[in-house]
């Protein structure tokens, strides 16, 4: 049997395989390390960080919907300095790439965080301009090409590590947003973040989430995510990281074919902590089955009818 090579190079970073854990679903890795050897993962995008600690939104913060969930965590996190001091050393014990996902209220906050992270051991920065769960900032930057361009070009000046811009699906034309990120200096884009949604408790006649609306993720969003990843990958030359509802190797392969150079796995970890490993093995088997040697043999190989 031929040996297949799952490694991918994205924005100058060597990922040993294309499986990256999606921000906000994997904490800072510690909890899942009881179930999974983190050395097996291509990378981990950590819980969204802000400049100062954030307490997050009141509960309930999650509602289940058919084949999906809505969340409204609201970026609860200890702040970027505490992350570097208390959480990063644990993650750095593992041979996996660490991506710092950052969110802020103002462009200055994003820049300050990029600067602080510049002297840390993280491998890349993921600009979260797409969180639907906080009031000020964040999502507002991500919904227009102009907004994306402004924040990306400013933050890029402060970045020592490669910059990934994470896009929101809550826009009408993903292509123009993706192109704006590229033009402004993004090294890579990732998508999709969650889709804004609502779930109602019909007995209380109130939303289930205390914050009313929440971000939808899980298997139900996959077709939308896949279409957007395809469109974005067509529109830009920089690499694309695809996500949204991936829970099996077939799902992941669809994203790779659609043009993603790597994938992120989020909600599926809640259901099956071992799924990243199973997905990795499934991709390997798929490559062997079709006699491919490398993951590059399938990236972007979708042919339209």
């Amino acid at each position: 049997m031929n040996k297949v090579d799952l490694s991918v190079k994205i924005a100058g970073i060597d990922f040993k395989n294309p499986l990256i854990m999606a921000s906000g679903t994997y904490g800072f890795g510690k909890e899942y390390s009881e179930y999974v050897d983190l050395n097996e993962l291509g990378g981990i995008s950590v819980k969204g960080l802000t400049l100062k600690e954030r307490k997050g939104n009141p509960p309930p913060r999650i509602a289940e919907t058919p084949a999906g969930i809505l969340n409204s965590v609201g970026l609860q996190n200890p702040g970027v300095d505490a992350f570097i001091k208390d959480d990063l050393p644990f993650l750095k014990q593992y041979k996996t790439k660490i991506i710092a996902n950052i969110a802020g209220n103002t462009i200055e906050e994003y820049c300050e965080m990029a600067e602080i992270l510049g002297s840390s051991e993280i491998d890349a920065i993921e600009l979260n301009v797409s969180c639907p769960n906080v009031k000020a900032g964040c999502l507002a930057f991500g919904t227009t090409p102009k907004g994306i361009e402004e924040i990306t070009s400013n933050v890029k000046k402060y970045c020592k590590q490669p910059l990934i811009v994470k896009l929101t699906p809550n826009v009408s034309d993903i292509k123009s947003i993706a192109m704006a990120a590229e033009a402004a200096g993004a090294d890579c884009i990732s998508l999709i973040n969650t889709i804004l949604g609502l779930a109602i408790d019909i007995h209380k006649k109130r939303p289930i989430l205390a914050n009313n609306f929440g971000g939808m993720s899980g298997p139900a969003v996959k077709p939308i995510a896949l279409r957007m990843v395809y469109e974005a990958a067509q529109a830009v030359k920089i690499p694309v990281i695809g996500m949204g509802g991936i829970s099996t190797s077939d799902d992941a392969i669809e994203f790779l074919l659609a043009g993603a150079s790597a994938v992120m796995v989020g909600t599926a970890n809640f259901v099956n902590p071992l799924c990243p490993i199973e997905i990795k093995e499934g991709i390997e088997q798929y490559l062997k089955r079709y006699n491919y040697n490398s993951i590059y043999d399938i990236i972007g190989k979708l042919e339209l009818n």
Partner: protein
Amino acid sequence: MSKVLKEQIDNMEMLCQDVFKMTIKSEYVAANALPGQFVNVKCGGIDALLRRPISICDVDKAKNTFDIVFQIKGNGTEKLCHKCAGDVDIMAPLGNPFLIDDKYKNICVVGGGIGTFPLLYLLKSSKAENKTALLGFRTKAAVVLENQFRAAAQNVEIATDDGTYGSKAFVTDLLEQRILELSKLGQKLDLIYTCGPTPMMRKVAAIAEKNNIACQVSMEQRMGCGIGACLVCACKTKQGEDEWGFSHVCKDGPVFWSTDVCWE
């Protein structure tokens, strides 16, 4: 440490309308589970996506089995009740258990509805000299596990909302009575454990505080991961002086000291 396990269902029994006891064979859980901990059970496929948290109700170390008792609420528990044989996919044991310590000699558990279930294994595990169980149910037909509780505690009192069984009262009334009776004998509860609807636990916590009795509560919240990674199962707690923050029911709890919870 908890594990993802596929374990064999040993037995399935209906205890009353909509309430089921599932006995699961698991050497690992039987050997490691502590009272107050829970399992995160996969109930269905893609249409009950998330795992459901269910408390460990009892453990039989000799037989390598443990019980969960659950009430049908929605899609997930409905699916679970149809599993009678074969295996079940669980993550267990999870969460922060009840404190069991020899220094608490006179203990009392206060449970309401589905909140009574985790208290059974607690009573069985405790070596306290004097154990009381105050259990509240909606109606006579919903009273379950009574004999097991009677075997595990010296004093068991039951209250029903409609008075069809035991006293027509709230369990919190029973608790106040019990504290009063004991004080007439010159005795005092050392520790109260409670699990049930939040308004009930809030009242129990207030009674405990007023009478200067330590109290542990088992909180409930909707969960995502069940292990402390996704931060959805928030519970407002006191942190430092005049400060508050969100702890997480799955990892920091479900069991908290009642005085650490912000009961608003």
